[in-house]
């Protein structure tokens, strides 16, 4: 099966945009610019999800990630920047770290792409076939219903554990975020 030309063009445009905005996250000096670049990256990744047929996950990505999580980020960035003198200071006291980090990064990307283009396990993995496959279920039930059926049948225990995790995170954030007042009103 070969990809159609519009799909290929879509892929390359998205690939360049995603990598460029991802680089923006670590290149921009200001934390606000990094956050905006990260929002762009998340939206491009959501478009990748759409291209791969994961509609529900793409919408969740835009709502939760690019929406809720990044708003929280920008909230903290602006809060710290307004209390601090101007922007958050970034003084580099260990400049030699940059060279080491770049070297390690090149080794990592080299090893990963070597594995990708020489490994045989990926291409020989067998798709789920027959009536239980994803595309058959999507054709029968629709994307969101397929997702919901799988979530509440096969993955109900991880789903319940998730609720516990969220409660713990909520309590943790409240404990960390509170200001303890002493008797004379100082904090």
């Amino acid at each position, binding site marked *: 099966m070969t990809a159609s030309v519009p799909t290929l063009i879509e892929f390359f445009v998205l690939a360049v945009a995603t990598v460029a905005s991802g680089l923006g996250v670590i290149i921009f000096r200001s934390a606000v610019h990094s956050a905006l670049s990260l929002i762009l990256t998340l939206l491009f990744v959501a478009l990748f999800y759409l291209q791969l047929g994961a509609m529900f996950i793409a919408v969740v990505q835009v709502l939760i990630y690019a929406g809720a999580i990044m708003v929280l980020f920008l909230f903290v960035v602006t809060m710290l920047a307004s209390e601090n003198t101007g922007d958050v200071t970034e003084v580099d006291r260990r400049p030699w770290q940059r060279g080491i980090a770049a070297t390690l990064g090149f080794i990592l990307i080299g090893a990963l792409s070597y594995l990708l283009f020489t490994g045989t396990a990926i291409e020989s993995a067998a798709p789920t076939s027959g009536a239980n496959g994803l595309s058959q279920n999507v054709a029968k039930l629709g994307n969101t219903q397929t997702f919901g059926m799988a979530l509440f049948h*096969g993955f109900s225990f*991880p789903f319940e554990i998730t609720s516990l995790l969220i409660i713990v995170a909520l309590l943790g*954030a409240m404990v960390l975020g509170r200001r303890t007042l002493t008797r004379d009103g100082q904090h």
Partner: protein
Amino acid sequence: MYNGIPISWYLLISAILFTIGVIGVLVRRNPLTIFMSIELMLNAVNLSFITFSSYLNSVDGQMFVFLVLTVAAAEVVVGLAIIVSIFRTRRNINVDDMNILRG
């Protein structure tokens, strides 16, 4: 059905994003930017999960992405609360200065 683009191309994009995230964590000194780099790495892994889900014609990859999203949200909430409380006590959030566990 899977759209026919070789699976290694998607995985290469995922690998590039992951490496950008790793370099960001190693290079940047601002904990907020380090957090953003971690989000970048999580997204790179999510992208390969979705790729495999589509390629293997199985819904399991999408489940994992959903759970990773939840964990990422919880992690960001706690992490940002820690950063804010460090900033309150030290008025400075350069990671080079954070060398004690005591408040």
